[in-house]
């Protein structure tokens, strides 16, 4: 009888708090969005499942290990505890993912047209205006964000999941769940968020601008580029060196042609394993007290604003470049500067085809698209540097 009571007392039904139930529901909603709506499933399936696991009452997925006075393990920690502390708190998982993303990135279109890097710069305006928005909310007493929180929220506008996770785990780990979910959700919503903004800011004639075919890029250029970028980062902004260094390393492995077996594993087994654990680890931060509060709503709202401003800035920058240069760029590709690779480039291509069915912008949009990855990593570096000193 005692045992029956013990079994009942330890059951989920007896222990569950309302917050946990709601968070499990949030997890299922994320799974639904990922599986049925195709929202960045590679990350949102693990994050959603991790959210459910972390909120099972009494399952201890998030429990810390207990050691006795002599340092022997009395009871082991939970799976998500180990994943979070070994891989996310240390920054290792986002960095390994960045290496994998580097190994998957083709800088060809960017090298053929390097001035599209400026579009990737412009789109980062969304990041910093959102920081301002967050501190304004705090200033007017609407929500309570520190400057560290505000910086982490802004980085959602970078449309780059691992960058957002890396920055947030350094600056405001308590917001990690909300920020990662916002970042990946909005990346998935790019095809819905961006087109109206792109159309509102461009004329039909601008959207029809045909761009000249990209020149072929030599193997040597592809090899030297990641090294050039590395040197520039090392000399100017070492705080961006972890992210961009690993990114360049992955890309060098891809392009150098002599370590294909390493590059293949980086692009496949390694990044897949780390993606699974990164997602589960982010899920472990999706607890009711950290997620179910007005700040999360603020984060979601500010994140959307960041995306919109980033998109607009990219488009406007392209129009500005057209004023100053003879080589016209189609301003639609400016929107791809937010990154969200390769979704944003596809959106630019699609909107372009609607205006002119013979104008394929995909390859042209890949330039600003990967430039956006560099841009938001630079923004992350400067943010970490400045905020740490504030």
């Amino acid at each position, binding site marked *: 009888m005692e045992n029956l009571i013990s079994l009942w007392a330890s059951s989920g039904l007896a222990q569950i708090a309302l917050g946990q139930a709601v968070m499990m529901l949030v997890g299922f909603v994320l799974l639904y969005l990922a599986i049925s709506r195709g929202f960045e499933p590679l990350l949102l399936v693990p994050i959603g499942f991790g959210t459910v696991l972390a909120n099972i009452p009494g399952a201890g997925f998030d429990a810390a290990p207990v050691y006795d006075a002599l340092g022997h393990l009395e009871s082991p920690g939970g799976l998500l505890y180990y994943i979070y502390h070994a891989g996310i708190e240390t920054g290792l998982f986002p960095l390994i993912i960045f290496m994998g993303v580097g190994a998957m990135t083709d800088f060809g279109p960017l090298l053929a047209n390097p001035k599209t890097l400026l579009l990737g710069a412009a789109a980062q305006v969304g990041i910093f205006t959102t920081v301002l928005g967050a501190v304004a909310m705090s200033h007017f007493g609407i929500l309570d964000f520190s400057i560290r929180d505000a910086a982490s929220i802004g980085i959602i506008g970078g449309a780059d999941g691992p960058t957002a996770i890396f920055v947030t785990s350094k600056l405001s780990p308590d917001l990690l769940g909300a920020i990662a979910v916002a970042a990946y959700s909005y990346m998935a919503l790019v095809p819905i968020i961006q087109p109206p903004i792109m159309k509102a800011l461009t004329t039909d004639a601008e959207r029809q601008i045909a761009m000249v075919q990209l020149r072929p890029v030599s193997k040597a250029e592809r090899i030297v580029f990641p090294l050039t970028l590395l040197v*520039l980062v090392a000399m100017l902004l070492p705080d961006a060196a972890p992210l961009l260094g690993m990114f360049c390393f992955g890309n060098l492995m891809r392009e150098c042609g002599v370590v294909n077996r390493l590059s293949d594993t980086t692009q496949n087994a390694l990044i897949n394993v780390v993606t699974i654990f990164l997602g589960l680890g982010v899920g472990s931060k999706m607890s009711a007290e950290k997620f179910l509060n007005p700040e999360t709503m603020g984060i979601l709202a500010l994140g959307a604003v960041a995306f919109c401003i980033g998109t607009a800035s990219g488009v406007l920058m392209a129009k500005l470049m057209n004023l100053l240069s003879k080589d016209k760029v189609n301003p639609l590709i400016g929107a791809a500067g937010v990154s969200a690779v390769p979704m944003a480039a596809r959106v630019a291509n699609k909107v372009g085809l609607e205006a002119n069915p013979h104008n394929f912008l995909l390859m042209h949009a890949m330039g600003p698209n990967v430039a956006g990855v560099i841009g938001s990593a630079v923004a992350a570096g400067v943010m970490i540097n400045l905020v740490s000193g504030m």
Partner: protein
Amino acid sequence: MDASLISQGLDLLLYGMGTVFTFLTLLVGLTALMSRSVMYFSKEEPIEAEMSSHKIHSTLVEKRIVKVIQAAIDQHRGS
């Protein structure tokens, strides 16, 4: 304190965007310079296609497939 929060935000916006633009503008210049130097030093023809091992792998597979097919066709012809 709150005013300082706003001013911190403004500082971030100013120095942040300044750094991002400076950095990427420099990168535009450096990349153009790099491409020109590389082209000057190496007379190698440009390669548009994928360089990944994937290609190599599938070429190998295809060679094997073609060989098998050749054998099959030879046998078929012979029979």
